[in-house]
């Protein structure tokens, strides 16, 4: 029977066979949100009315027999959307007080594509303010809790989206990934998350953080579900000048292929061994054995410049952010503070930004302003751009020896809320394995590969492929997922505590 614990593919199939309606399925998810979101706080806004209206529309179309040829395979399946994507008439805050109450007058391209495909938008999910963070603790609207352990972080910045999917509040979600903000929370919550190739998914209507790094991508509980969503949101958009004008990689077919015979899989030497939690390394090594058993060939590759990527990222991203966030000037939308008729525009602007931005956002704006200021530009921003060249070259070299590369997604499993919130440098280190992918613009997947022995929390394997070869990590991910499932006998999320149990 189809219920909230089913996969999106199962829901889609039951919908097309008319075993369940989208209204029933949507209502089941809204009920679940009402029951458990007090514990998780995945959502900043739940659109009960809008979701049910959208579901009813899909059901009506299906009843008229219009479905199969005109709408996507995911028509009628619910989704949660990160609160950084503009949705017409629906509050969109990017986790910031400066946008509190803003209702965009237009849809982002990804939201428009979801609507056109009949994917039902349940609401907007919590996130670190302007996507700056790795724990969702930088949200101006409170933290999100990890469904596996409510005292721990679900990761970030797309923590609300990941917790919603892992907590069965939604089968699918949209996130954004600038330095790991999809892959890291996917890893910490035991679900699948993909950062597509840079330019693979339109960013029109997505509130910008670091424009040379930001990418929108899908979350799901299985590789196939994630691929189905990937195909709905991907593709060229003339409203985003960084969008790639090329066919979408065949990710659904790749997810179904279940075969890695003859593929060369590169293990990145610098992202293994010491520095990674023992239980994380153990699960990664087990996955490597399963891939070998499935017929893949393992090669070791070296990426010596990755150790500088983190430092370069924390110069490039804040620099771009200091420029992007200049748009929040209190003139056209969002908060305005101190406009009493006596103060000038710049005074009002400064007072508004003081009141509207949180601590981490201010930290990054100041850091970026410093790195771009004359006298320091070459030493900081300029040097970071050179490191970016070196990281790209490391990947290019590695991909001459291997079809895909693998590493852990994170050095540790989910950390405690509050554990790193007062130590920015320690927090930044949780992105050490994900950042190189954004620097080079390639795509990467986080796949849940089991639980760490010492704490029983999920571990993510990162699978990376060359530019626009996103189908490769779906192929490897699908194959490994099938091998793990047959080993476990049940999905990884069945090990998580049941949140709905009444106290």
């Amino acid at each position, binding site marked *: 029977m189809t219920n909230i614990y089913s996969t999106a593919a199962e829901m889609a199939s039951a919908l097309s066979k008319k075993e369940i309606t989208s209204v029933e399925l949507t209502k089941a998810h809204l009920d679940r949100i009402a029951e458990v979101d007090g514990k998780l706080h995945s959502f900043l806004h739940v659109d009960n009315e809008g979701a049910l209206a959208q579901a009813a529309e899909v059901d009506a179309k299906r009843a008229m027999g219009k479905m199969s040829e005109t709408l996507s395979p995911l028509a009628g399946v619910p989704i949660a959307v990160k609160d950084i994507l503009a949705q017409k008439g629906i509050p969109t805050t990017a986790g910031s007080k400066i946008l509190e109450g803003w209702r965009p007058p237009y849809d982002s391209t990804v939201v428009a594509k979801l609507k056109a495909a009949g994917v039902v938008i349940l609401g907007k999910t919590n996130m670190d303010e302007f996507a700056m963070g790795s724990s969702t603790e930088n949200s101006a609207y409170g933290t999100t809790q990890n469904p596996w352990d409510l005292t721990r972080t679900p990761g970030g910045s797309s923590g609300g989206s990941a917790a919603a999917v892992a907590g069965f509040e939604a089968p699918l979600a949209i996130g954004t990934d600038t330095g790991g903000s999809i892959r890291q929370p996917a890893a910490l919550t035991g679900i699948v998350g993909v950062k597509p190739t840079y330019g693979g998914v339109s960013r029109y209507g997505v509130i910008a953080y670091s424009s040379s790094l930001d990418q929108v991508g899908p979350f799901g509980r299985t590789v196939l579900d994630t691929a189905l969503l990937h195909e709905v949101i991907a593709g060229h958009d003339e409203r985003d000048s960084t969008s790639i004008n090329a066919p979408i990689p065949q990710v659904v077919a790749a997810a179904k292929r279940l075969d890695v015979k003859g593929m060369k899989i590169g293990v990145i030497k610098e992202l293994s061994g010491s520095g990674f939690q023992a239980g994380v390394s153990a699960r990664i090594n087990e996955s490597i054995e399963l891939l070998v058993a499935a017929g893949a060939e393992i090669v070791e590759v070296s990426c010596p410049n990755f150790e500088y990527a983190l430092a*370069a990222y924390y110069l490039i991203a804040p620099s771009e952010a200091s420029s992007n966030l200049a748009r929040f000037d209190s003139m*056209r939308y969002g908060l305005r503070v101190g406009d009493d008729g006596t103060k000038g525009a710049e*005074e009002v602007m*400064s007072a508004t930004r*003081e009141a509207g931005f949180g601590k981490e956002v201010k*930290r990054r704006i100041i850091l970026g302003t410093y790195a771009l200021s004359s006298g320091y530009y070459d030493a900081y921003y300029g040097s970071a751009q050179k490191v970016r060249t070196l990281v790209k070259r490391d990947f290019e070299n590695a991909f001459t020896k291997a079809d895909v590369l693998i590493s852990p997604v994170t050095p540790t499993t989910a950390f405690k809320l509050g554990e790193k919130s007062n130590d920015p*440098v320690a927090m930044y280190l949780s992105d050490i394995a994900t950042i190189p992918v954004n620097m080079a613009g390639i795509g990467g997947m986080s796949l849940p590969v089991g639980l760490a022995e010492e704490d029983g929390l999920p571990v993510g394997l990162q699978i990376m492929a060359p530019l626009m070869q996103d189908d490769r990590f779906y192929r490897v991910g699908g194959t490994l997922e099938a091998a793990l499932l047959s080993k476990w006998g049940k999905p990884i999320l069945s090990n998580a505590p049941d949140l709905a149990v009444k106290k």
Partner: protein
Amino acid sequence: MAAISRDDVAHLAKLARVEMTPDELDHMAVELEQILGAVKRVQEVATADIPPTSHPLSMSNIFRDDVVKPSLTNEEALSGAPAKAEDRFKVPQILGEE
């Protein structure tokens, strides 16, 4: 590297149009110094012979046809404005400063 003083942070905050309390300035000076200490590592490998990368894809100047397309109405464009008057954004005075 020169130490980051409280005055340096105050100057940066002014450039970035973010007011800061004395307490915030004190904290930020310490944190900025820590972060810069960690990120200055990029200088170890950034030698003169390496070209910079500003963007992951080699794209430049994307053009489109210069035709009028449907866009926001005046009312929609002003829907989020903190203040408006006469179908325009109303802003605080911009003259008479500095």
